[in-house]
């Protein structure tokens, strides 16, 4: 059974690009494109890794992450945060909120792949 990656991102093109890269690498990619019900979707799907965008309609990525971390079930799921804001304070905020890794857009595909591989619990 391949590991599941949940990509929560509202830009269709980016979803498509990430899905293609990860799927080619053998991961099971699921997507979701708004923040309102993202937490519920995570509960339902129970992925092995989450790729989370910050700017989402409805709820921001940080809020979603905080909620996830409070939930016992999802507290330890590795989360990779993506953002178009690349400043240091954003990085710090992400780490405080509970992200395991943080990447700025635009990112390199190779980097995403490596990061996902490294973050996946074995």
């Amino acid at each position, binding site marked *: 059974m391949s590991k599941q990656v949940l990509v929560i991102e*509202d*830009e*269709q*093109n*980016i979803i*498509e*690009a*990430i899905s*293609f*890269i990860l799927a*080619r690498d053998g991961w099971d990619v699921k997507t979701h494109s708004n923040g309102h019900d993202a937490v519920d979707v995570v509960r339902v799907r129970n992925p092995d890794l989450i790729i989370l965008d910050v*700017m989402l*309609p409805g709820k921001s990525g940080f809020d979603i992450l905080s909620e996830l971390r409070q939930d016992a079930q999802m507290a330890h799921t590795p989360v990779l945060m993506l953002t*178009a*804001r*690349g*400043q240091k304070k954003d990085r710090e905020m992400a780490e405080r909120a509970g992200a395991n890794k943080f990447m*700025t*857009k*635009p*990112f*390199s*595909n*190779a980097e995403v792949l490596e990061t996902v591989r490294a973050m996946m619990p074995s």
Partner: protein
Amino acid sequence: MATLNILIVVCVLYVAFLFAVAFGADRAARQGRGAWLRSPVIYTLSLSIYCTAWTFYGAVGFAARSGLEYLTIYLGPTLVMIGWWWTLRKMVRVGRSQRITSIADLISSRYGKSNLLAVCVTLIAVIGTTPYIALQLQSVTLSFEAFAQADPSQVNAPNPQSTALWVAFGLALFTILFGTRNLDANERHHGVVMAIALEAVVKLFALLAVGVFVVWGLAGGIEQTFARIDASNIARWDVPGSRWVGLTLLSAAAFICLPRMFQVMVVENEDEGHLRTASWAFPVYLMMISLFVVPIAVLGLDLLPQGSNPDLFVLTLPLHEGQDGLAILSFLGGFSSATSMVIVASIALSTMVSNHIVMPIWLWSTGGTAIMSGDVRHVALLARRLSIAGILFLGYLYYQISGGGTALAAIGLVSFAGVAQFLPALMGGLFWRGGNRVGAVSGLGVGFFLWLYCLFLPSFGPNVLLPQSVMDLGLFGVSWLRPEAMFGAEGLNRVVHAVMWSLSFNTMAYVLVSMISFPEPLERLQGAQFVNVFQHSATAGSWSGSMARSEDLLIMSQRILGAKEAQAFFAQAASEQGLVGYLPEPTPDFLLQLERELSGSVGVATAHAMISQIVGGAAVSVEDLLAVANEAAQIMEYSSKLEAKTEEQTRTARQLREANEKLTQLSQQKDEFLSQISHELRTPMTSIRAFSEILRDADELDADKQTHYASIIHDETIRLTRLLNDLLDLSVLENGQVELSRQEGQLIDLLDRAESAAGDVGHNITIQRSREVEEITVYSDLDRLVQVFINLISNARKYCDAESPVLSIKAADQDDKITLDFHDNGSGIAVDQQAVAFEKFSRIGQTGADGAGLGLAICREVMLRLGGSISYLPGQNGAAFRLVLPKAET
């Protein structure tokens, strides 16, 4: 029988005695032991300098000739003394507070420290006093003669001329020795005053002794004396009213104006309070000295041979009766009175000559700069001594020229009339603020000239200085200009006549010219100082260490510092000096402290001026006042500048605060803007990068996928480009840097263009237009308008979420504007987002694949620049935007 030799010995001894007294008094004064010198009795006695040889001898002569007329000479001064509250008090106050050294000093100081006036007064004084000095010489000479005549052992009588010369010389020497040993800053001569007081006693005693002898020794008692009077030539009281009043007034005027009287009364005055005593004590002295004059005159007329000089009855009567001792005493009295007059008069005159004539000339000739004080003193003393000698020489000269034969009284009155010319300027100066220098000079000039013409020149006798023809027929033959009957006033006593005209014209000239002319600033200042002397802080302290000065200082300080502070300050200073109470000695240290204290309240210049006015007696000079005024002006200027600065600073601070707030806001806005832009730019960049990497790295890829991904890349770059364009556009619009090119066009054409340009965006939408209404001419930037239309149509295509989207475009032509409504049938903009709809980067739904949210922002800016507006119409069943475009050129 008395011999002349005894007389001479007596004289010399007496002089030596006087000198010793004077020397002793001077030393006591310098050593500060002079408390008894400051007795009011001494002051009163010193006033007796008024009674000279003229009184001693001439009064009896006057009485023998004219009866009680002689009393006028003493009634005048009596009135002045008992009326001290009017005039003398003010004169003394002014003299002390202004540190006046002579009558010339007083007059010139009053009229703006005018040296011209000082010179005039000095000259008139010298000329006026010369006859009087001659009179003294004459009386001494005559008295010597009288003794010589009574002394049979004397073979040839001494030549009167040589006697007079010897006497003059002796007097000059004595005066120089007496009065010019050193220079006193206050012109005080304590020794001289003491000597005069002694002489006053001697001459009173002598005259009283002769009087007593005459009444009881010769006549046999008071009743008999009166009987003799009633039987004599002068039994009838028939003094003409004009003479009685005129001479009384003249003697009163002279009493005030005589230089020697001014010297003892004002300059030598130690304490103003002495005036109180003198006000009654001196009239008593005058009364006593004139008491026996009539008895002596009557008895002399009776007992002495016909034709004897009545002026000498005081001497000749005792001689005739064999009372040698009494005669010598009488001689001493006469000699004493003559010498004291000459001494004081010549001191007073030499002070004036030296101060106002010699010293100014000397200072001017030496350039007046950086003079060593020792030098000045040396020159001043020399000047004094030479002046004394000169004055006595002049007196001798007058004596020679006038022949020595005139009645003493007549000479005396000539002199009185001369110095009386000072009266208008003096009294006017003390009581009338309006008196000024030009007036004083005019008055003096007129009065002096009339005195010369009517009295002085004729007094030499006919044909000596004034031709007899002028005396009889008048100047240039005009009878109205006769010296002794001017303007038709005939039959008047010569003296009264001269006094009447000279003083009248003097006063008239003084008053009229003063009223016409304008005084200098210093004159006005001095006028206020003098006339208002009682309102100012009072007298300068007499001797150093006078508490009166401290009192003045305290009173002044109270006005400035307040009563409590001033008293505390003074009490502190007093206790530091080891004194009890609240009046410290006005030591230089204390004065400096006080000046500092006061300057805190009124400024340095004012404090200095005030203190020096009280302590130093210096008049506040115009320079001082100017300094005060300058200082005050500077202070005001500074404080107003300070105020202005403070206001400016407050304003600037406020402006800075506001600017700072704006900048902070702006920078916050900029930060937000930049981060927003960053986000908007990165999003398409992400797709572009990701897909271009996929395309680069993928080994096998469907052609479909390849095309698809390449298109995505392409679309994203376009999106990016559009974003950048919009951003730039918006920036240009906002900065007002946009160049608008206005043209005429048809609205319908513009809408057509926009419709076709926006055709590819978003979903399909049906556009409803009412073409007939759209035939409106617009004058504006047409491309920009099209841009706005494109934006609105694209938005409708993108965001209208109705099942069958319809956009209706309605145009309306109103007078001065065109209204264009874009209304779709979607859900419109939510209420809470309507406010921010036109902001940058605000997007509905945040699904921003097709726009950065700048469209409406750009529309708003464009419409603003075109002079119109765009607004969202709420509650319209869908998104409704209204454009307003002005028709006229804006």
